[in-house]
């Protein structure tokens, strides 16, 4: 009998790593039987392609911009060589394309456990107010700016400072409408419109990896406090926490969203009131997801089981005080492996 075969995307492992490598490590740690892992990479230079004990086979993939049909054809080709049971997409940018081909993949016998399209739309920063208006999830007050003439009127609705955010990336603090103007222009030229202005909340920020069952239930969640940051503000070290108030907020939000699959939540606890606010919902595992394994809550493996249609019992909150510290590593790669990926777009480590 062939082993369970799971394909995972996002094998970039730089100082702003993709979640693919830690997701694979988690699956290997969780699976009771050895499984076969297929790495779906976008670049021959993704370090995850070459790491021992990560992917058994690696295939280069078309970028999401090439469209759903090209992606489907590539997966069908891979599936013809190495039948895939489950695909775990791990990058925000590829999810919409994977959702478009979800039905075709199901017909091929390839399963996923990912958020619904409507959930992807809800978590968009430009529509974040709807979480409060429609679902009652606390979010910082925000408005979307489509032109700079809106900026002088910000005084009427906001107390400064405010956060100025791009719809996909970048966030700056602004202490006056003049500073908003500068950030607006910078973000507009880099990420396009709209630009989002958000109430600034003083307090403690927590990061959470969670999996929802799609019916309002929380399968499991591991909250952590960042202990070290990169210059891009990404976690380079963190520690699990167990705050009953935060746990209730997470459970409530996941229930109201009826979230399906993995997500990373960024939550702020306001300093004076102790009120929690949802700052961001990322529809995928974070790169620090292996901490969930360290805390005894293997959320990537739970997601594989859910994709396979198995029941997964809701997990109790994880114990606090489990740390992770990330490190960088110089991966030695053979020219033959690099050549295989560059010329054939495939690398099969199991046949060595």
């Amino acid at each position: 009998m062939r082993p369970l075969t799971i394909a995972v995307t996002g094998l970039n492992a730089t100082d702003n790593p993709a979640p693919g490598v830690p997701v694979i490590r988690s699956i290997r740690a969780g699976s009771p039987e050895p499984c076969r892992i297929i790495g779906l990479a976008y670049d021959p230079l993704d370090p995850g392609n070459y790491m021992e004990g990560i992917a058994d086979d690696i295939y280069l993939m078309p970028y999401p911009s090439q469209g759903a049909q090209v992606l489907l054809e590539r997966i069908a080709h891979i599936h013809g060589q190495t039948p895939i049971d489950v695909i775990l997409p791990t990058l925000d940018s590829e999810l919409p394309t994977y959702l478009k081909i979800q039905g075709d993949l199901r017909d091929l016998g390839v399963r996923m456990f990912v958020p619904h399209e409507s959930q992807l739309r809800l978590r968009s920063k430009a529509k974040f107010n709807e979480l409060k208006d429609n679902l009652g999830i606390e979010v910082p007050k925000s408005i979307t700016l489509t032109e700079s003439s809106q900026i002088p009127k910000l005084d009427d609705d906001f107390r400064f400072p405010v956060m100025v955010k791009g719809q996909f990336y970048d966030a700056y603090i602004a202490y006056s409408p003049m500073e908003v103007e500068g950030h607006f222009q910078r973000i507009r030229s880099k990420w396009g419109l709209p630009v989002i202005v958000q109430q600034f909340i003083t307090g403690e920020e927590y990061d959470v990896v969670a999996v929802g069952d799609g019916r309002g239930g929380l399968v499991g969640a591991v909250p952590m406090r960042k202990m070290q940051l990169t210059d891009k503000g990404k976690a380079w070290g963190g520690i699990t926490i167990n705050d009953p108030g935060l746990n209730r907020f997470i459970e409530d939000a996941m229930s109201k969203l009826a979230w399906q699959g993995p997500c990373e939540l960024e939550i702020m606890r306001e300093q004076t009131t102790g009120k929690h606010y949802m700052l961001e919902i990322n529809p995928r595992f974070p790169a620090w997801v292996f901490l969930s394994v360290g805390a005894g809550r293997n959320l990537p493996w739970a997601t594989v089981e859910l994709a396979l249609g198995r029941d997964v019992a809701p997990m109790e909150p994880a114990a606090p005080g489990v740390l992770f510290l990330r490190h960088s590593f110089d991966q030695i790669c053979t020219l033959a492996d690099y050549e295989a990926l560059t010329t054939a777009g495939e690398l099969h480590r199991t046949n060595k």
Partner: protein
Amino acid sequence: MYENLALSENGFLFDGRTGATYSLNKSGTFLLKQLIEGARPEALKEKLIESFDVDEATAARDVEQFLFRLKDLRVTEEDEA
């Protein structure tokens, strides 16, 4: 109230609710240990005087400041129902 706290003999404190860690001095470790073991805050001054070479006024001030600091850092905050 203190189940979220892990305090070592050396005074290393981890607050599991917030993820914050602290290094306490000898008297701070002593006082927090008393609280964790069930002492009432009003009894701390006498306990400090019994165990450390300190006069009553200094002990009262130190205990008051220590309790204020713990509260300010959310270490002794009750969980909302």
